[in-house]
């Protein structure tokens, strides 16, 4: 892939855990690639599949949904519901050969600033390998 390719990642980060982990990474100066553009959501379970699809069709090279670890959800079980929805979305993307590996679900707790940075780094690297998302920006999408 092109050396200059910088993958664009849209992040849906839950207010309680992953957004706080991103805060923690920042205050601790644990740095990560500048490829993620976060949208703060209250719960990973509130991320509608159509938001993820919309992002992919609009040219996102990856979508990262970040939530609390199972059992830790501020809303008791929103993350479990998110997990099932992402499983369905990935199943559909797999069937249609639309590269399910561009959609990541990761549990990142408020104290895991380091893990947050590692996830962003790993995702950026893997998406760089893949190259631009072919779904994005076609006249028909």
């Amino acid at each position, binding site marked *: 892939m092109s050396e200059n390719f910088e993958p664009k990642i849209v992040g849906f980060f839950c207010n309680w855990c992953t957004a706080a982990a991103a805060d923690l990474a920042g205050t601790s100066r644990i740095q990560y690639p500048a490829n993620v553009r976060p949208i703060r959501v209250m719960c990973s379970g509130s991320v509608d*599949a*159509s938001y993820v*699809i*919309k992002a992919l*069709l609009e*040219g996102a090279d990856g979508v990262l949904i970040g*939530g609390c*670890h*199972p059992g830790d959800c501020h809303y008791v*079980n929103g*993350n*479990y*519901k998110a*997990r*099932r*929805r*992402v*499983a*369905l*979305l990935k*199943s*559909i993307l*797999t*069937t*249609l*050969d*639309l590269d399910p590996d561009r959609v990541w*679900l*990761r*549990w990142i707790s408020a104290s895991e600033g380091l*893990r947050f940075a*590692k*996830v962003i780094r*790993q995702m950026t690297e893997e998406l760089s390998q893949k190259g631009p998302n*072919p*779904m994005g*920006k*076609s*006249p*028909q*999408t």
Partner: protein
Amino acid sequence: MIGIYAKGLNPREATREFFAELFGANLISSALLPARKAGLNQIFPALLSSKDSLDQTFPFAPVMPLSTAVQLSKITRFANPTNTVAVLLRPCESRAAVELVKLRQISLDNVLLITRDCPGTVEPETFEEKASDTLPGFSDFTEDDLRPVCRMCSYPEAPVADINIGTFGADAEGGIILEAKTEKGAEILKHIKLEAELEDTSARDAALKSETDKRTAYADKHLAELQKEVAGIDNLIKFFAKCVNCHNCRSMCPVCYCNECFFDSATFHFEGPRYEEWAARRVVLQMPRDEMLFHLGRMNHIGLSCVGCGMCEQACPHDIKVGQLFALISTIAQKELDIHAGMSVTDPLPLATFREEEFTEMGEEKV
């Protein structure tokens, strides 16, 4: 309880006879059955209030202009009928009805759910071509006439019913096989004179198995080809090339139950500058917008409820194989998520619930 009914009659006559008996014994007060549109060669569900017009019904006509599950929803959703309504459904209609019960769009409180074995259906046009004064039956069509979704449907018999009318395993003039599948059904059958209890169901089981095997084999092959055809975004775009975003597919889908589709809502009333922006990024922005979002979004909405009836495809003005595509994604998704549409009215709603022990590896990759 399972037994032979009206030996000597063909399934159509036997079924009419069965309904006549239900009416006669005051077990039902009305019945929703496939009937001939007056003076026309089309079969639509009709609500009959007496046994007198049963001769207009064609319970086994191999055509399905729409899913009767939706009509059952209209009858029961806002207030239950006062007296018992019997409804005759195909397996796919029954499974759609089960989904709609789960979604509170159908109430079965005053409904006697009768299903019948289904060997498959043809498009309404194909049906009409073969019709004259007499309407064609299943045997008037070849395998190739059948709608592809019917040929891959793995439910020749409905999984949920009070009473099922079986034809697989019965002789052509050998009546029908009535089977009570619930207590309610068994209670009804007590009042019906069966020719004989069917002690040995092996012929029926074998017939059903062979039918299912045939269809599964077809589905495996056909869906594998389809999957190749749509693989990747470019092929998917090609697949939907003729789509005009009319949303007929969702209008006719029995499990698309929303009052107003999200994809028709004000969320999609974008401002002019937004269109300019999109066009600027793409140079060419193909209109109408958000067609792919609609199809992929709908797959996520109903992928776990899709019963593969193919009403979407039948409704498509441009013959896009959308029903087959949905059969493809939903077959795989339902298997992978171990959530099977139309199997039980007590199953939880898949997208509102979860199982703690499922997909435990997701979200966990250690980095």
